């Protein structure tokens, strides 16, 4: 007998495609936030499916901190070309040059928080009224309460205590002039779902996710990759390690994991056996107990 049950991955896929199409239908000028990380890669893959055989009817927006892994930019450009998508880039460096933000100094300096200003400037400049983001609720406790359709006021702020109720699959994207929405089609996905789906769909992933040799410094348990953006502190040294990245962000705050996982199957086994969350290696979340919530309220991703 034919069974009319979708597997969890196909059900998540269907839900995400529905949300992405809803964005195209309800908003005038949406864009898809593309960071080159696994979540935005999967989101882009789903967007491509949602409108196939037509092209994705909105551009990709990349907020470039200037501290990207070179592999990320290479991967981004190749993929954009393959999909025939439009790419808009907002540069944090421009925000610094214009005096919109002041760069952090010191050995722990990061441009992570500065991205918010660049992002909000890009929204204003291009008149985007909805941004699709790859955020997942399982990533971080502040994200656990985020809606699929998350309202932002005219300052780009999130008000977690006063969110619109979200029922069934009826999404309310109505807004006033100057306000916008962040939409998270992968809300219900976990890290494991993402990797399983990558395997199921055989999605090409950046080499950074697979184990390789790299010089890193161990800073309070976070393994930071060698780059011109990381300055050694007293007693620290570069060491050659066999690592991979579980998340990919800016080079100044993305920590690596010592790993032998060199294939999707091995990554899935590693994730299944892992006893720490993927954001455990993110220095940007370690700044305080509510670091993510505080950044999100200001308009962060």
């Amino acid at each position, binding site marked *: 007998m*034919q069974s*009319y*049950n*979708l*597997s*969890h*991955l*196909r059900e*998540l*896929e*269907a*839900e995400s*495609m*529905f949300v992405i*199409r*809803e964005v*195209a*239908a309800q908003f005038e000028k949406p864009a898809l936030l593309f960071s080159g990380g696994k979540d935005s890669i999967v989101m882009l893959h789903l967007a491509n499916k*949602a*409108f*196939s*055989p*037509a092209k994705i009817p909105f551009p990709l927006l990349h907020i470039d901190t200037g501290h990207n892994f070179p592999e990320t930019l290479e991967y981004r450009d190749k993929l954009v070309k393959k999909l025939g998508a439009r790419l808009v880039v907002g540069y944090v460096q421009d925000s610094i040059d214009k005096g919109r933000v002041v760069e952090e100094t010191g050995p722990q300096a990061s441009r992570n928080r500065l991205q918010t200003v660049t992002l909000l400037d890009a929204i204003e400049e291009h008149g985007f009224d909805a941004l699709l983001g790859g955020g997942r*609720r*399982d990533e971080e*406790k*502040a994200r*656990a*309460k985020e809606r699929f359709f998350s309202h932002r006021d005219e300052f780009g702020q999130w008000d*977690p*205590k006063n969110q*619109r*109720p*979200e*029922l*069934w*699959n*009826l999404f*309310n994207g109505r*807004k*006033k002039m100057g306000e916008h929405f962040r939409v998270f089609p992968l*809300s*219900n996905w*976990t890290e494991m779902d993402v990797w*399983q789906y990558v*395997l*199921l769909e055989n999605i090409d992933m950046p080499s950074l996710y697979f184990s390789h040799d790299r010089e890193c410094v161990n800073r309070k348990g976070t393994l930071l990759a060698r780059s011109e953006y990381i300055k050694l502190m007293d007693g620290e040294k570069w060491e050659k390690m066999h690592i991979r990245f579980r998340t990919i962000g800016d080079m100044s705050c993305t920590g690596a994991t010592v790993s032998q996982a060199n294939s999707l*199957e091995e990554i*899935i*086994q590693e994730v*299944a*056996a892992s*006893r*720490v*969350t993927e954001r*455990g290696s993110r220095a940007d979340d370690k700044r305080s*107990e*509510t670091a993510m*919530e*505080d950044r999100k309220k200001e308009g962060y991703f």
Partner: protein
Amino acid sequence: MEHFSGNGYLDMELLRFTTAGSVDDGKSTLIGRLLYDSKSIFEDQYEAIRLSSERRGEPEVNLALLTDGLRAEREQGITIDVAYRYFATPKRKFIIADTPGHIQYTRNMVTGASTANLAIILVDARKGMVEQTKRHAFIASLLGIPHLVICVNKMDLMDYDQQVFERIKKEFQGFASKFKVHDIQFIPISALKGDNVVEKSKHMPWYGGSTLLYLLETIHIGSDINLVDCRFPVQYVIRPQTNEYHDYRGYAGRVAGGILKPGDKVMVLPSGFTTKIKAIDGPEGPVREAFAPMSVTIRLEDELDVSRGDMIVRVNNVPEISQDIDMMVCWMNPVKLQLNGKYAIRHTTREARCVVKNILYKVDVNTLHRIQDDKEVGMNDIARISVRTTKPFFFDKYQINRFTGSVILIDEGTNETVGAGMII
């Protein structure tokens, strides 16, 4: 491909459930226990809440801190909003909609329940059924949750006494006979000590049923969707306008009911034109069948004028088509429902305006009595109302199809979602 260790299965079922309990019923502890015992809590998460608990001077690690993530929640020790949690066992993947026990209770539970296949209702063994338990059960039934699991918690504080459990079970069954629930199960547990949550309790040999986790892993959810009445709300029209796909015109959407196949004779609403399904494109290419909740693109034999908000249905099985809709509404906003007030109304992918023609009665959610003399519908109230819409809607009763039987009302001034409606 399918033999991965741990959670590495590519083909698992997804179960969405919601948890309801009064203040101090141990709901957060139960969720913490499920996550902890199924090894879904990571070391860094555990370490963070251990440190947090210590800083607050709490004697034990407070598992509630896992679910209360917002600054205000941590400061005030309360849960503000629906939080979504995830865990998986080798059998199933679970999504928990964790709803707070006191503030804006009805609003939050309705939200969490709207997408759930199952509701866990916690009852404190010492207190038995209280008003809130009745309210939770009523909301679960109103929202059409197919499965209800009543966990009688804190059995450890009642010496694991079978009589206590049986008494509560009997009382609940008596109450539940007043409304429609398809499937109710009862489990005696201690979330704190872990009895019958993941591991079978050694203290309650008189209980022959399954543990909560086993039940969650095995309960049959396959027949919870409507496979009979074909409903396809058109969400988005795909027209590539490229040379390769010059004549391609696809109607993208999510199947809301029934099983659609190429060759099916269908009618497009509201135009009433009939045609046949030429092909159905799924996420992996053409499919022979499409059913809820698949996201697909349908191509039709004839070129018709079809747009977002239209609905494709079977010729001989048409939903109700009307501008007058009767519904139970849960009010979700501090500004009261206005008789003769105008709201935006959204149903499937269709949006229009409506006017509230009548408020028939309010429901006392604790006694289920109809209140006829007070028609002020404020935040967290549930009422029966009728509205008239500016254009026809195509709908089913909520109890028959949750996708085509639900609406939201939106305040046109603030754009806030103010009401959740279930069509009757």
